[in-house]
Every structure is written in structure tokens, then in C-alpha cells.
């Protein structure tokens, strides 16, 4: 019996540890900067990238027959003529140039097999970009574009001359970005020194050029952090300032709409008024006069509109005009910042002849010389990527960047759920155990509650969508947010409905645990309280509940663990692939009606909905590990709280 019980425990532990260990083993290395290999094919083409994995496969006889004679000579085919060989999945990046992120490369096609002594070019750079994924290439030069306007043929050369006489940045030479016809007749854009500009080059821009790989690396190190700051500034302007103006515009529109709902102007008046407004905006005198006459006619026919309404409309329009002006100024400001920040570029060569790429430093998140990094530098890249993962926002269809919004959404939703389910479940359990007269009906109810825990969670999702979103939410909209209709405020999936749905889902857990905890409080303690002249509620509140609290918290912990890991119902009631805003705001309704990102849904989305599944794979593991860590953390926090309460109640001082 000892062996049976112990064996069962070992099997359980092995399964749990195996799962967590497997996820951790896949997740933890995913941010580690690997070495970049250069695989040389027999046809002379070069593949540069990071090895994702290697697998053995059987090359069928027909394919073997097509191999070159010298390759075939070294093979030992099976009876049916097929050959076991291996292939390597290489992350070659450069999606914008090659139309793929990854590439399978057969060992038989390579001069040196991938497992052999492959070349690792010293100069190769790994560039993580805001868009288009990774880039692998060789930095050729860095440039700072000084004048963007093209100059006509006559003025071109003299302009460069006079300009290069001014003080150049450290180590830079004067040059230009030119559009040139290459040997194979294609038009290419590249940077050249001022003295290398040819007669038929068309100058795109003048630039200070830092030639050579070393200088380019040097510039990258200096410019990338500055670019990050500019990106942040732009994002902040877009989000905060533009968001504020948009919010003002929206609230003006809402006030106008509210006034319309209140005063009910005739549609004819609204149409005439809108026409006048459009005419004023266009500035056409004749149109203004016509619209004014039209409006006067309408007012004569239908009677004048209430002055309160007119005032509301005028106030709203004033706000709108001011906001629109601000809007334009902001857009201009953002454009200016972006233009200034776009001047710094780095030009890269790639493994393919002629496929060169100029990348704005503004678009570069991170660049590092993968094959020159010392251990400490690699740890630095690892930590930087991990930090971005935890604190950053997603980019590249969630394949890259961070999951902070998902962490935020998960934690907030779980806490909100606890806030709802614990009081609700405890009160329900109190009624069932303490107030209800025990009998067949209560037993039936108890069985029903227990069975509720066995209902598939997606059913709760459907119920939440139907009841909370479309009935409760729509009613709230009708009552309080009528001005925003038909745009729903609460009548759609959102954080609050997700929390309520999960609260419903986890209520049985809390109810059952609370009932057990209440039942475990000895009768003698209750009687002691009654004998002191306490009523039932006083006894419950002062004696029974404190004594049952650890058990109740155990239920809350179980509920939290269940709720935090639940995904299926969330897909219906609030979780989205990419939420533009965090589900939090300072003004009512405090953002709780917004859709949100959730780590569990993120795992599903990355793993099964991603366009670039290979690149998403490490993110799936990492996100899953993070979800586990967060659930464990929440649980540990609750367990610590329980231990504290227990200590307070049973051992130490108050």
C-alpha cells in the first residue's frame, strides 16, 4: 500500500514537474542571442541566420537520383534507394527581401554540413526591427541625411562642395544618397562620397557618411538608444496628446447628441444646420448665403429650436473647431519629430549579391554583432529582451515585443474576479450552511452548485456573452450611455463582463470550500457565543467567520487558480488579440468596459493563429511560462495572506 500510494504521488509529481520543466526548458532560452551561421550551398548561394533546429529525414529515391554525381557517391542508400539525411531550419530573417522568415536547408545541398565546421562571419549584425521581423546583414556604412530635397542637375555638385566645407561630425565624410543605375540595369539607391558621385547619378539627399563596418557599429551604438527615446516620444504624443484631443472631440460630440436626444430638433433643421456648417467650412460665400436662407426657412416652417439646444450645439462646435486645430498641430509636430529622427540610417549588405537594405535607425529596436558578443554582452541582450517582453507592448502581430498589456489584463481580471466571487460565494455558502433549514431542498441545491463546477467553461462564456454583454450591458447602455449608441459602451465584451463570467464559473469552488470551512467550526464555539447573548449574525461575524477564514481563503485561492488559467470563456466575453488601450482609466467607467489582452488567450493566439508560427513558437512557451509564474505568484500571495491570518488568529498578537 505504501508503494501504491507513494507511486501515485511520484507519477503525479513527475507529470506536473515534467510539464512545467518542459515549458521552462523551451521558454527560458528563447531570448538568448544565438550565433549566426553562414551556410554555403553547392550552387554558391549563402544562407545567413540562426539555427532554429535540426531534424533527420528520409530523402526518397527519386530525389536521391536527382543529386549531383559526386554527392551521390558518398551516400549509402537503403534497399529502396532512399537515404537518411538531416536538414536544418535556419532563421534567415529579411522577410522584406526574401519573403520568408525561415528556410529549411538540406545538408546534402551544403558544401559543409550545418553540423560541421560552419563559417560564423565576424561582421554579421542581427537587427530587430519595428516591422518586417529580424534582419541579418553586414553593416556597410552609417549616414546622417542632412537635406532631403533633391537638387536640380546644375546646382548639385556645387551644393555638395560648399556644404562639405562646414564642420563634419566626428569621422564623417561628406556624401550623398544617390539613385544610380546598376550594372544589371536596375535603379538602386545607395550612399556615396561626394567625390564618387557620377555624372548620371540622381541625388536623393545630401548626407554625412561614416564609412566602414566599424564606424557603422559605432554609430549604431550611439543612435539606437536615441532613436528609442524618439519612438517613445512619438508614441506618447500619439497616445496621450492625440488621445486627449480625441477624447475632447468625442465628449463634444456626445454632449451635442445628448442635447439632440433631450430637445429633439426636427431632422430638417439638423440637415439644414449641417449644410450651413459645411458651407462655412468651405468658405464659399454663395453657399453660406444659400444655407442660411434654407435654415431660416426651416425655422419658420417648423418653429425655432430651443435656445438651450442651440447653445449646446454651438458650445460643442466651438470645442470641435478648437480640437481640430489642435489635432492638426499635433499631427504636424509628430511628423516633424519623425522626419528629424528618420535622418539617421544604416546601410547593410546581405548574403545575396545586390540585395542591400538601408534601415532607418528609428525602426531599429536592437542591433548586435551576434558572433562577436562576449558572454557578458550576450547576457545583456538576454536581459534586455526579457525586460522588453515583460514591460513592452507587442509588435509584429504579437510575435515580437512584450506582453505587458496581457499581464496587466490577466492580473486585473483575476483580481476583479476575486473581488466579486469571494463575497458572493461566502454569502451564498453562509445562507446554505447557516440560515437555510437543512433538508432535501437544500441538499438538492448543494448538489446543483457542485455540478455547476462541472459545466464546460465555454458554456459559461456563451452565457456571459448572452446575459452580461447583450442583456445587462445593453440595458446599461440604454439607461446611461444612450448618447453613444449605436456604439456600445457596456453592451459588448469587456473586462467587467469577463470578470463576472469567471466569478460565476468559480463560485462553486468558493461555495464548497466555505461550506466546509463553516462546518469545521466546532459547535461548542458557536454555543459559547450564543450563551454570551450573541445573535446569529453576531456569532457568524465575530466567531465563526474568523475561525473559518483560512478555509475560505483556501477556496479563494483555488478559485483564483482556476480563473487565472481559464481561456475559453474569455474568447467570448472580453479577451482580444490586440487591445489598443489598457483596461484602465481614471474617469468613469474606469476602463472596465474595454476589451483586454490575456496571457492564456495570447498563448492560444500565438500558437494557433499566428502567420509566422516558427517565430511565434518561443513566444508561446515563454508566455505559457509567464502565465504559470503569475498564477503561482497570485497563489503564493494568497497563501501568505492566509498564513498571516491564521497566525494572527491562533498564535501571535493582534
Amino acid at each position: 500500500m505504501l508503494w501504491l500510494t507513494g507511486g501515485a504521488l511520484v507519477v503525479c509529481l513527475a507529470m506536473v514537474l515534467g510539464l512545467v520543466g518542459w515549458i521552462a526548458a523551451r521558454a527560458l532560452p528563447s531570448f538568448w542571442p544565438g550565433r549566426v551561421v553562414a551556410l554555403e550551398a553547392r550552387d554558391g548561394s549563402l544562407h545567413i541566420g540562426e539555427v532554429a533546429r535540426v531534424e533527420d529525414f528520409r530523402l526518397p529515391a527519386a530525389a536521391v537520383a536527382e543529386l549531383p554525381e559526386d554527392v551521390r557517391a558518398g551516400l549509402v542508400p537503403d534497399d529502396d534507394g532512399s537515404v537518411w539525411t538531416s536538414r536544418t531550419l535556419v532563421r534567415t530573417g529579411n522577410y522584406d527581401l526574401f519573403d520568408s522568415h525561415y528556410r529549411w536547408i538540406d545538408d546534402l545541398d551544403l558544401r559543409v554540413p550545418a553540423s560541421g565546421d560552419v563559417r560564423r562571419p565576424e561582421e554579421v549584425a542581427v537587427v530587430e526591427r519595428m516591422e518586417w521581423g529580424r534582419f541579418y546583414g553586414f553593416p556597410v556604412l552609417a549616414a546622417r541625411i542632412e537635406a532631403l530635397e533633391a537638387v536640380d542637375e546644375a546646382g548639385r555638385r556645387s551644393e555638395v562642395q560648399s556644404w562639405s566645407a562646414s564642420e563634419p561630425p566626428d569621422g564623417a565624410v561628406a556624401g550623398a544618397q544617390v539613385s544610380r543605375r546598376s550594372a544589371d540595369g536596375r535603379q538602386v539607391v545607395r550612399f556615396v562620397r561626394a567625390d564618387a558621385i557620377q555624372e548620371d547619378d540622381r541625388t536623393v539627399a545630401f548626407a554625412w557618411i561614416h564609412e566602414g563596418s566599424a564606424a557603422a557599429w559605432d554609430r549604431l551604438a550611439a543612435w539606437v538608444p536615441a532613436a528609442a527615446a524618439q519612438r517613445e516620444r512619438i508614441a506618447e504624443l500619439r497616445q496621450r496628446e492625440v488621445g486627449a484631443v480625441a477624447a475632447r472631440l468625442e465628449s463634444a460630440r456626445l454632449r451635442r447628441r445628448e442635447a439632440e436626444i433631450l430637445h429633439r430638433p426636427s431632422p430638417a433643421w439638423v440637415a439644414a444646420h449641417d449644410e450651413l456648417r459645411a458651407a462655412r467650412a468651405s468658405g464659399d460665400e454663395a453657399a453660406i448665403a444659400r444655407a442660411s436662407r434654407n435654415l431660416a426657412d426651416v425655422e419658420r416652417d417648423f418653429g425655432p429650436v430651443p435656445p438651450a439646444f442651440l447653445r449646446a450645439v454651438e458650445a460643442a462646435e466651438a470645442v470641435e473647431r478648437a480640437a481640430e486645430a489642435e489635432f492638426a498641430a499635433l499631427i504636424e509636430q509628430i511628423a516633424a519629430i519623425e522626419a528629424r529622427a528618420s535622418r539617421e540610417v544604416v546601410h547593410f549588405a546581405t548574403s545575396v549579391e545586390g540585395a542591400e537594405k538601408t534601415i532607418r535607425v528609428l525602426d531599429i529596436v536592437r542591433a548586435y554583432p551576434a558572433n562577436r558578443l562576449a558572454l557578458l554582452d550576450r547576457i545583456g541582450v538576454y536581459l534586455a529582451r526579457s525586460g522588453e517582453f515583460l514591460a513592452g507592448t507587442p509588435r509584429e502581430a504579437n510575435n515580437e515585443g512584450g506582453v505587458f498589456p496581457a499581464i496587466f489584463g490577466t492580473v486585473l481580471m483575476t483580481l476583479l474576479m476575486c473581488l466579486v466571487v469571494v463575497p458572493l460565494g461566502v454569502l451564498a455558502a453562509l445562507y446554505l450552511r447557516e440560515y437555510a433549514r437543512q433538508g432535501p431542498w437544500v441538499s438538492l441545491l448543494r448538489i446543483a452548485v457542485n455540478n455547476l463546477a462541472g459545466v464546460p467553461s465555454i458554456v459559461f462564456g456563451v452565457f456571459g456573452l448572452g446575459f452580461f454583454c447583450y442583456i445587462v450591458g445593453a440595458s446599461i447602455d440604454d439607461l446611461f450611455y444612450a448618447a453613444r449608441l449605436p456604439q456600445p459602451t457596456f453592451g459588448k465584451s469587456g473586462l467587467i463582463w469577463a470578470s463576472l463570467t469567471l466569478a460565476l464559473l468559480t463560485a462553486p469552488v468558493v461555495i464548497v470550500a466555505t461550506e466546509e470551512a463553516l462546518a469545521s467550526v466546532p459547535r461548542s464555539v458557536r454555543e459559547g457565543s450564543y450563551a454570551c447573548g450573541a445573535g446569529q449574525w453576531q456569532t457568524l461575524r465575530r466567531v465563526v467567520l474568523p475561525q473559518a477564514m483560512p478555509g475560505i481563503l483556501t477556496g479563494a485561492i483555488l478559485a483564483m487558480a482556476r480563473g487565472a488559467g481559464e481561456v475559453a470563456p474569455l474568447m467570448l466575453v472580453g479577451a482580444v488579440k490586440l487591445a489598443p488601450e489598457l483596461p484602465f482609466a481614471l474617469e468613469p467607467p474606469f476602463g472596465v468596459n474595454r476589451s483586454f489582452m490575456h496571457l492564456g488567450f495570447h498563448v492560444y493566439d500565438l500558437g494557433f493563429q499566428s502567420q509566422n508560427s516558427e517565430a511565434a513558437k518561443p513566444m508561446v512557451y515563454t508566455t505559457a511560462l509567464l502565465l504559470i509564474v503569475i498564477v503561482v505568484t497570485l497563489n503564493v500571495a494568497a497563501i501568505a495572506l492566509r498564513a498571516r491570518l491564521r497566525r494572527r488568529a491562533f498564535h501571535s498578537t493582534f
Partner: protein
Amino acid sequence: MPSLPSRRSPANPLPESRPSSLRAGGWSEPVVHAEVGIAEPCFEIDGFSLWYGDARALERVTMRIPRGRITALIGPSGCGKSTLLRSMNRLNDMVGSVRVEGGMRLGGDSIYGPDVDVIQLRKRMGMVFQKPNPFPMSVFENVVYALRVDGVRDRSVLEEAGERALRDAALWDEVKDRLNASALGLSGGQQQRLCIARALVGSPEILLMDEPCSALDPIATSKIEDLMASLRGDYTIVIVTHSMQQASRASDFTALMSYGHLLEIGTTSTMFQTPRRPETEDYIRGRVG
């Protein structure tokens, strides 16, 4: 003390020798000693009967509990003495399917009357249970619990009443430095005295003790008995006990019950020295029960 012939012998084992009225059924008028009638009653029980469902646990119990004295309820297990005690502050109400007949009066006020506020009634009584049952809170909060639920908020009133109750319960010196520590950290004997202090804090008219020493060791037991002796005169105490020695040592009056009947009640000395009923004699001599 007259010497009585022993009825127990190997040839005549216990069950057959048991007097009929210590067996179930059969009603006989209880023997009430004259001293009980003379003393001023604090609590009166009039023909009280109680059923758990169909099973009768008490039958026509009539007794008066003298004020300021300690009355011990003795009797074999299951004779209804605890039930009687718990009926006195209506704790049996908590059990479903309980039915009663007859009445009780505390200082003249009916306990089972139609308009009785049970909570107000319980506030006039204190109760100590078989096992110490301190609440999961500090020593101080335990003691003043009855006042707290009564709505007393004034800190000085609470502190004064708490200290007095703890002094009355002879616990003050032991816990005065750990009033804010959890009561569950006290020893068993201390916990029981704490429960006594808790029962005393509202200056109850009657203190009901349900085998208060059954879970305690001899030293803790003797402390509780000393405490009861010190409370004698100020408080009316009813104590249910299984221990003849305790009843004889600590009580002024003793009542013997059996199968839901009151058999005999009198001063402890006469009950133990010159009992009138042979069943009483048998029981206190340890021949039955």
C-alpha cells in the same frame, strides 16, 4: 454516618441489583429535602419535560435553585442533566425537533413564555462548557465578548469589566501581560478559566457550568474548584458533574437525576451522608452509574 450493607457481590452482578427507578420508565415523585425549600430561589423549574423528536429526555422536572449557592447536578451518563442545564438558557433551541412542556423562571421571569427575547435572557446568564471553547481572538476580546455583542464601545468600560471578570476568574495575574495575545495560546486550564471570566463579565444572575473540569488535569481542576468556592455567595452556580468528589467538595446542594427524572435534591452533606432514597445511596456510593 451510618454504615450500609453492600449490595454488590460477585454472585449478584450490577444490572440485576440496579434499583428500578434508575432504569428507564416509571415515574416516582422526587424527594426534596426541606433545606432546598427554605433557601431563596434564583431559578425555578416547574414540571419541565423535553423531547428530542419522539425520545423524551426530561420528564416533569421540578426544582428550585437557591440563590448565591452552588448546586451540583449529578447522575449517570445520559440522565438528562446536561440537557436540563442547556434548557435553562434555551441552547437546546438550536437543535431542531426539540419540544418542551412545563416552564422555567429566572428571578421570576419566564424563560419559555411566548414573548421571551432569548438573546436578552441569555445575557442574564453565563455558561461554561465541557471543553474550553475560547473564540479565535485575543484574551481581552474573549472576556469582553458579551459586552461587545451588547454594543458596548467605551474602551474604559470594557477594560474595567474585563479586568474585574479576569480577577473574579483568578486569571488576571497570569494573563495581564498578554491580554492582546490570542486566547488559543493559553493552556487548557487557563482557557477554561478564561471561559469562566467570559461568562462572568456581564455579572450574570446564574452561572451554568456543564462539566467544566472534564477536559482538565487535577491541578487545573482544583483551581477551578477554588475559583467556584471564591464565587460562592456572589453568584448562583449550577454545575453538572460526573465526579462525586467534585460534587461533595464544591457544591452546597446536590440534585441526582436519572433517565430524565429528578430523583432527590438536598444539601450536599445530607445527600452524601444520609440520602433518603436507596437509589441515591447506591449512586453516590459508586454502586451504579
